[in-house]
């Protein structure tokens, strides 16, 4: 059977594109590089999607207007976004709930530990893999040809016009099967390049070797590289990504959500030399977790250590790995490979700078330091009660932002001109909206909105119809 629309990738954006193209009558083939058990790119590690809405609905606890969403986005990106595409994304995010529900995705109230997102973010019942399973079932029911363990090794493009792709089935095995797949439209929804350490080096140098990749090892950027080589326009810079501080003992790939550490606001964070480097009490953790990846990446050896005492031990989400524990600060320093005297000096200086106050981790309390640089502006309590605990931090990359420049129809631009039949959705084009920074749940928003646009437009391109509607 001939392929109308070929889609590279197997995550949320790819499946949304496949479903919309299939619903518009196209024969769709999806090639996913990962085996079935690991399908879905980073979608399998997600849990929610940030959606604009006029009113709460029993699960979402209140309204989240597009304008407020836009203010949030401008704040986290520092204005580093394409305003037209950003507004389009946020406006169309209002359709996501109903669209996903119609595909069999179910929602639930925000999870324990994430109540702060209960108004703005729609949480998937069972998490992102459950959501992805629903999309896959729907795609199968619509006759989409889903091929796992199949990667794209080459793309034939003439003047921005897609002719064919070369795919390799069973590429991780002993007998890969190559196939030239001509198609009338192509959707690149194959993720970022965060699992490609060599590519990360271009932006980060040797520090990249110390990064943990929170998501799939299959996002190596092959399709992105091929498209850029074929003359597609680039968006974003090579070092921009969604990075958080994760547990230093996390596996190199696929650690996912469990490797996060929520203890930073409750203690101090020191680097390899036992020195503090940023205000740990600047803001509530959900609002600050996304900056700590870059902070730790900037430290020597890309490592940080959170030090807390016994007081807040149970106040944050449990960690997947137990902390190092010791009865003295010096003993703790030895356990985590720091100079005991240096850590002792840092802790003493911090303790001496803590002003008396009423500790309350649910508000911006008045426990702060004075005369300390950097300061700790909230939740600062002397670290005095043994046993002392330490968690090691490493930069954890979620996904990269540099990708393909698109227009509002999700068409990839070649020298500023939109391609007639090449589209992009998801992480591979997220940099159009996210120039820097991150807003929890917006990755899935971009993937769903542009996946739908790409699938609809790709099906429309078959008939040269405008807006994906058959004429």
């Amino acid at each position, binding site marked *: 059977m001939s392929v109308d629309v070929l889609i590279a990738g197997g995550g949320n954006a790819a499946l949304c594109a496949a479903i919309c193209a299939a619903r518009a009558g196209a024969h769709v083939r999806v090639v996913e590089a990962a085996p079935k058990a690991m399908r879905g790119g980073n979608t399998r590690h997600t849990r929610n999607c940030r959606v604009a809405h006029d009113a709460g609905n029993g699960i979402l606890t209140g309204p989240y207007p597009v304008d407020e969403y836009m203010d949030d986005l401008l704040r986290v990106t520092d204005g580093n976004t394409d305003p037209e595409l950003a507004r389009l994304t946020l406006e169309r995010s209002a359709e996501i709930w109903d669209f996903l529900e119609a595909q069999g995705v179910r929602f639930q109230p925000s999870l324990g530990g994430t109540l702060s997102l209960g108004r703005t973010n729609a949480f998937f019942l069972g998490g992102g893999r459950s959501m992805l399973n629903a999309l896959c079932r729907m795609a199968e029911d619509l006759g989409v040809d889903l091929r796992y363990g199949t990667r794209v090794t080459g793309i034939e493009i003439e003047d921005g016009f897609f002719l064919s792709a070369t795919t390799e089935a069973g590429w991780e095995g002993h007998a890969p099967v190559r196939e030239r797949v001509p198609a009338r439209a192509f959707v690149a929804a194959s993720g970022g390049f965060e699992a490609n350490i060599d590519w990360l080096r271009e932006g980060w140098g040797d520090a990249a070797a110390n990064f943990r990749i929170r998501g799939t090892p299959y996002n190596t950027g092959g399709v992105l590289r091929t498209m850029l080589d074929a003359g597609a326009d680039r968006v974003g810079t090579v070092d921009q990504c969604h990075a958080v501080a994760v547990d230093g003992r996390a596996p190199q790939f696929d650690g996912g959500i469990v490797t996060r550490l929520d203890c930073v606001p409750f203690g101090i964070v020191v680097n390899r030399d036992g020195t503090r480097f940023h205000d740990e009490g600047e803001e509530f953790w959900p609002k600050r977790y996304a900056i700590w990846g870059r902070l730790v990446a900037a430290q020597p050896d890309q490592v940080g250590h959170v030090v807390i005492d016994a007081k807040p031990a149970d106040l944050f989400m449990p960690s*997947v790995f137990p902390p190092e524990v010791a009865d003295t600060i010096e003993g703790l320093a030895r356990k985590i490979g720091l100079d005991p005297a240096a850590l002792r000096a840092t802790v003493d200086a911090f303790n001496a700078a803590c002003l008396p106050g009423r500790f309350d981790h649910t508000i911006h309390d008045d426990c702060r330091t004075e005369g300390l640089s950097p300061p700790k502006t909230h939740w600062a309590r002397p670290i005095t009660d043994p046993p002392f605990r330490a968690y090691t931090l490493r930069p954890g990359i979620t996904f990269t932002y540099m990708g393909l420049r698109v227009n509002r129809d999700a068409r990839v631009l070649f020298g500023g001109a939109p391609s007639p039949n090449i589209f992009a959705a998801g992480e591979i084009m997220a940099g159009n909206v996210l120039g820097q920074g991150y807003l929890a749940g917006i990755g899935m928003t971009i993937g769903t909105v542009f996946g739908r646009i790409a699938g609809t437009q790709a099906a429309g391109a078959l008939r040269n119809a405008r807006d994906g509607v058959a004429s």
Partner: protein
Amino acid sequence: MTDTPDLAALATASRAEVARQMQICNACRYCEGLCAVFPAMELRRDHAGGTADYLANLCHNCGACHYDCQYAPPHPFAVNVPAAMADLREESYARFAWPSGPAMLFRRNGAVVAVLVSVAVAAFLFALAGRGEGGAAGDFYAVMPHGAMVAVFLPVFAFALLAIAMGVRRFWRAAGPLPITLGDLRAAMGDAILLRNLSGGGMGCMTAGERPDPWRRRFHHWTFWGFALCFASTASGTVLHYFADWPAPYPWYAPPKILGVPGGLLLTAGAAGLIAQRARRDPALRMASDARMGAAFTWTLLLLGVTGLALYWLRATPVMGPLLAVHLGTVFAFFLTMPYGKFVHGIYRTAALVRHAHEQRQSRVPEAEAPVETPGRAVNPGAGPARP
């Protein structure tokens, strides 16, 4: 493996695996909305020992969390909650059983139950051979007098109830003492009767793969209600016999028949359905143990339903005598093995639901919550999420 399993070592291994996985799940919590296990898990930081037993018996084995899990194999974290829970659950039945001796009954449960059913049926066939021929059509008491039935079945049934009660007491204490209130009981009964936790959070069970499927829950409902109706039928017969001076045989409109016939039909269809479902079960969700405890239980229930229905339809034919012997033999073996097989899953699970209801009423999740994001001002959400 020896024939005398080291229960203590087994317990440690199964509990340690559940505790290991719960440590990962508690840092993730994506499955929070699927069933009672995850909210119960979130109230604790340590899931060892009796807590693991409790969580394992709270798990209804719907399978949803396995298909939704980002850490399922081939991920190196190798999380498979339904399988780990099932292994510990079956092993816990043996540990809580009273008296403590018959662990072997659990290790080889399928074989033990099959042998006992066969022996009991043979014994009844032998004892009742040739009785009741030429008697009144459909008069079971001509084959086995009512007094003899009571003398044989009452002691074994009473002992089964006592043994089960002692087992539940052990189970309850293992997870720590807790008062039981009427409200907790009501909530747990609602959960148990509706099988709320066998629905994958509303999407359905996962039986043969990643497509949710309502049938396992339906078959379970049929089996449970069929069994309950059959039991009510027997009980109503007892009441009529002793208190209404109305001995068997009963006309079609009498309570034993009105309850028993639909009960038998439901029990037969439900048990057959569950057996078929088990054959289709994804190998990933099958337990490591080869005790065949579940199979022994559903096949026994199917045999009970089929022989009961056959008796109803063939009670006026010459095969009634042997058929009654087969049915009574099955019932006898069923009573005898009730405390030492899959039957107790419903009892322990209901007890776990009672504990869960109590905890959810009492507890708050300990972790800090950031305030809900509102433009321009922070809201204090309190110490933790309130749960529905």
